[in-house]
C-alpha cells in the first residue's frame, strides 16, 4: 500500500482530546493526488508513483508538463512529484487517486519540508551556544569564543560550529501523531509543529 501523500501547511492551533488536555496541533491540507504514471522495478529500476496535485491555471503550465497530463487525459495540476515505496501489493493505474484515507487517527507520521530561512545567523541562534557576560566591560556577549588551538595544529578543526546560513533546508521531523482527520476538507491535524511557513509544501509519510 502507498503510505505517503503530499500536502500543504495551513496553520497551527490547539484542540482538546478526550482526556480534556489541550494539544498543540498543525493542520495540513492534503488534496487527493492523481496518479500520472506508475513506475516499477522491471521498467524503471525502482517502484514509484508519479503524482500530480494542487490547482493551477492552464497558462502557468509549460507545454512539456502539459503533455504528460494530456497523455493520460488527466486534469492539469500544479505539482508533479514521485512517491517511492517498496511493496506493490495493489494494482495502481494512471488516473487513480490517493487521498488521506490512507491515514487513520493515531497513526505516526514523518513530515518533510523546507524550513524557514533565517539568513546568516550567529552561534547562539544556530548552535545553541551560551552567551557571555553582558556587564563588567565584557566584549564577549554573543561571540563564539575560542575556535581552536595555537601553532599546533594551526588550523581549525573540521566541523567546528560557527556562524553561517541557517534554515531554508529540507528537514524531516521525527514521527508525530495524527490527532484528527477531517475527510470532507482533506485536513490532517498532527501533533506539534511542522517545518516552514503556512502554505509550505510537505511530504507526509506513515511510519
Amino acid at each position, binding site marked *: 500500500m502507498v503510505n505517503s501523500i503530499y500536502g500543504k501547511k495551513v496553520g497551527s*492551533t*490547539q*484542540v*482538546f482530546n478526550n482526556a*480534556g488536555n489541550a494539544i498543540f496541533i498543525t493542520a495540513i491540507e492534503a488534496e487527493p493526488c492523481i496518479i500520472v504514471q506508475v513506475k516499477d522495478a522491471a521498467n524503471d529500476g525502482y517502484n514509484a508513483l508519479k503524482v500530480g496535485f494542487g490547482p493551477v491555471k492552464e497558462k502557468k503550465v509549460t507545454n512539456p508538463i502539459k503533455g504528460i497530463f494530456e497523455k493520460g487525459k488527466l486534469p492539469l495540476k500544479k505539482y508533479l512529484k514521485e512517491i517511492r515505496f517498496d511493496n506493490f501489493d495493489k494494482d495502481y493505474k494512471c488516473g487513480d487517486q490517493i487521498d488521506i484515507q490512507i491515514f487513520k487517527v493515531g497513526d505516526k507520521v514523518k513530515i518533510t519540508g523546507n524550513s524557514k530561512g533565517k539568513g546568516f545567523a550567529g552561534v547562539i541562534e544556530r548552535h545553541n551556544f551560551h552567551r557571555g557576560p553582558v556587564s563588567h566591560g565584557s566584549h564577549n556577549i554573543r561571540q563564539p569564543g575560542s575556535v581552536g588551538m595555537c601553532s599546533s595544529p594551526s588550523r581549525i578543526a573540521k566541523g567546528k560550529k560557527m556562524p553561517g546560513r541557517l534554515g531554508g533546508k529540507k528537514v524531516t521531523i521525527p514521527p508525530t501523531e495524527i490527532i484528527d482527520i477531517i475527510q470532507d476538507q482533506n485536513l490532517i491535524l498532527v501533533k506539534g509543529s511542522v517545518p516552514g511557513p503556512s502554505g509550505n509544501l510537505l511530504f507526509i509519510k506513515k511510519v
Partner: protein
Amino acid sequence: MNTIDKIESKYLRTDIPEFKSGDKVKVNIRISEENKDRIQSFEGIVIKTHGYGINKAFTVRKISFNVGVERTFLMHSPVIQSITKLNTGIVRRSKLYYLRKKVGKKAKVEFKK
C-alpha cells in the same frame, strides 16, 4: 471563516454563560481518578479573562482558609463540566490584580443587586 477557525469551531462550547471580570462564578471541574470521575467545584471572583477563540481563558480567585487561591481555566476545555454565574460585579477595570494585595474587607468586589 478561514480553515483554522473551522477546525476550532468543532471544539468550541456553546453552553458556557457570558461573564466578565468581577463576576462571581462557580466552576464545576471534572476530575478523573483511576477509573471514575468526580466533580469538584471552584467558586470565586473572575479576576481576568484573556485570549479569544479556542485560546480564551479566565482566572478565578478565592480565599481559602485565609490563603488566596487562583485557578486559570481554558474556557472551552472539556474538563469544565459547567459554569454558573452567581453575581455581577461592579468593577472599573478588566484585570483585577489589585485584589491580590488587599486584605479583609477591601479584598471584596461589590455586586449588583
